């Protein structure tokens, strides 16, 4: 039985970790991911090279992995990363398109292009935490706790994973929409991994 050991939720105005608000944006403004990074006291210069989707997903993962006390140095073949969203990498696609749209100012940017794939966020999390199990990314029309539940369950079953970092990671129009959960095979009676509980944490 898989349980949700830790979870984080980032929305337009705040970040919540395991039920407690750890950061709120200033009145009326959308949350600024760089401010959030600094507030969380993370030291990882590569953060600034990431696109918005990766920044949001990275911050969501960083907090719960630290909170759960997961070993981030030893390569872990028994941990999977399974993420979902609805806009794929559209936010960065638009940024990349801006580097090629104008023929008179045509300078395709490789550092922007590399992020025009939604699964890069799973790569960034894997690199940071030495996670070497399965990494997958799926695009759905909208958040669906039942699809997330069944796909993650089937994945963990097939790979015999002992831990799975999973959930929803989306970013568009300056707005993050992230729910990340760290699942582990434990019996300490915390939150069970079910479609119903995923839905509760998201809403």
């Amino acid at each position: 039985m898989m349980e949700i050991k830790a979870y984080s939720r980032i929305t337009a105005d705040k970040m919540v970790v395991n039920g407690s608000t750890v950061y709120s944006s200033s009145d009326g403004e959308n949350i600024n991911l760089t401010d959030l990074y600094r507030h969380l006291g993370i030291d990882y210069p590569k953060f600034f090279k990431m696109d918005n989707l990766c920044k949001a997903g990275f911050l969501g993962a960083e907090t719960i992995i630290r909170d759960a006390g997961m070993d981030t140095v030893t390569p872990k073949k028994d941990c999977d990363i399974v993420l979902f969203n609805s806009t794929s990498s559209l936010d960065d696609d638009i940024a990349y398109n801006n580097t090629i749209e104008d023929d008179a100012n045509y300078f395709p940017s490789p550092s922007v292009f590399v992020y025009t794939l939604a699964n890069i966020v799973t790569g960034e999390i894997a690199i940071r935490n030495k996670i070497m199990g399965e990494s997958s990314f799926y695009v759905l029309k909208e958040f669906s706790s039942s699809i997330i539940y069944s796909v993650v369950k089937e994945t963990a079953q097939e790979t015999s994973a002992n831990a799975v970092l999973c959930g929803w990671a989306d970013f568009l129009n300056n707005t993050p929409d992230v729910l990340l959960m760290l699942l582990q095979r434990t019996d300490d009676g915390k939150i069970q991994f079910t479609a119903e509980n995923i839905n509760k944490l998201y809403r």
Partner: protein
Amino acid sequence: MEKYNLLRKILINYTDNIMEQLILELKKQIIEVLNLEDVKPEDIDSQAPLFGEGLGLDSIDALELIVLMEKNYGIKLSDPAQGKEIFKSVETMAEYIEANRKK
């Protein structure tokens, strides 16, 4: 003879200044295009290696520097392998730009 030496000194001073300015400009541009958020120009040693140690830049950074050369200085590098020598340090970059710039 004195006038000649004086003129020579002024000229050397002038070209040194241009190079200094270019190096400073280059450092600011590198920080910007490579998203080195917490790095200031004075933190970058002009002669230190850019790749490997030093700023620890990677393959994508090297490609982005190629774009920088074209965008800001009109220099097109047809062969990315040339980059290894040119991007050794900020100083070698500045020297190459000074010798080949079209903007």
